């Protein structure tokens, strides 16, 4: 653990990703799941930038820019869906929303 290296960032990324994934798996509130998905996205962003940092490439940063842009669009649509869900079926519990089954 002498010098700050790409492993540090990758480890952080992995930790965030795993925490996010566990959140998605464990929680039932769709809003929390949404937050955990954002957490996973950010973890991926850290990895991208870390690799770019290691290899002296800016492509990773450009990708992250796009990821953030897409995440914004996703958030807009996703939150609108959640709002509509709340309004229509009066719940945001993923365990109770299973109309897809029928």
């Amino acid at each position, binding site marked *: 653990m002498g010098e700050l290296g790409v492993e540090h960032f990758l480890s952080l990324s992995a930790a965030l990703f795993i925490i996010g994934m566990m959140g998605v798996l464990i929680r039932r509130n769709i809003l929390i799941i949404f937050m955990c998905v954002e957490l996973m996205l950010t973890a991926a962003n850290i990895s991208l930038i870390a690799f770019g940092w290691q290899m002296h490439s800016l492509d990773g940063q450009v990708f992250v820019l796009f990821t953030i842009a897409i995440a914004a669009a996703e958030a807009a649509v996703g939150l609108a869906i959640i709002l509509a869900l*709340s309004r229509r079926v009066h719940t945001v519990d993923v365990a109770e929303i299973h109309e897809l089954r029928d």
Partner: protein
Amino acid sequence: MPWDLIIFYMLAAVCIAAALGVVVATNPVHSAIFLVLCFFNVAGVFVMMGAEFLAVIQVIVYTGAILVLLLFVLMLVNPDDLPEFHQGKPVQRVVGGLLGLILLLEIAIAILNREVVGVTGTATPEAIAAVGGNTQAIGRLLFSDYLLAFEVVSLVLTVGVIGAIVLALPERLGEKVVQRKGTISLGHARGVDMEALGEGTPEGEAPILSGRGGFAKASGGRKLVMTNDPDEYTGA
């Protein structure tokens, strides 16, 4: 221990703690706060990797826009709709935790045993400084190699915004708006003032009638005239 390592460990520790807080917190608003904290520290990590521009973008977009939006939604959603955390099946939690652990193990193996290999790019710190900084370097790349992708992303954003507007429209036009009491002051852990309102339609809520000559009973027994047509007053 060099300064940068110390700073990194601080940022990472807060980051991971906040991330755990997101998952563990019983109150969704607390989760959101933890997420803000986490993202703030992630922005710090970005700065450490020389991505100042992205750090700022991360703060502006994620914390400044997406999470504010999320808080909005949190507060607009009826608290009765929010599931309690500990109602989740234990199986789900065990399986989730187990999977997380396995993945942690796998990734740890991968990180500890691998080296990053690949073609080293040209964006050395010196090269970036030569064009004026991180922002300028990204700008150059974005508007040359990634121009098409950039345009496509802007299109996606536009579509996303329109989609969000369509989805969030309360009801279709012409449909009666179903008023739900207490759409405000929601999402609060101990917001207990709901019962105070009691059941039944609150006084003062008049059904909205369309067309000419709609009369509705308003509070206080006073007649409420709802009209679209000014002639109604002057006519009979």
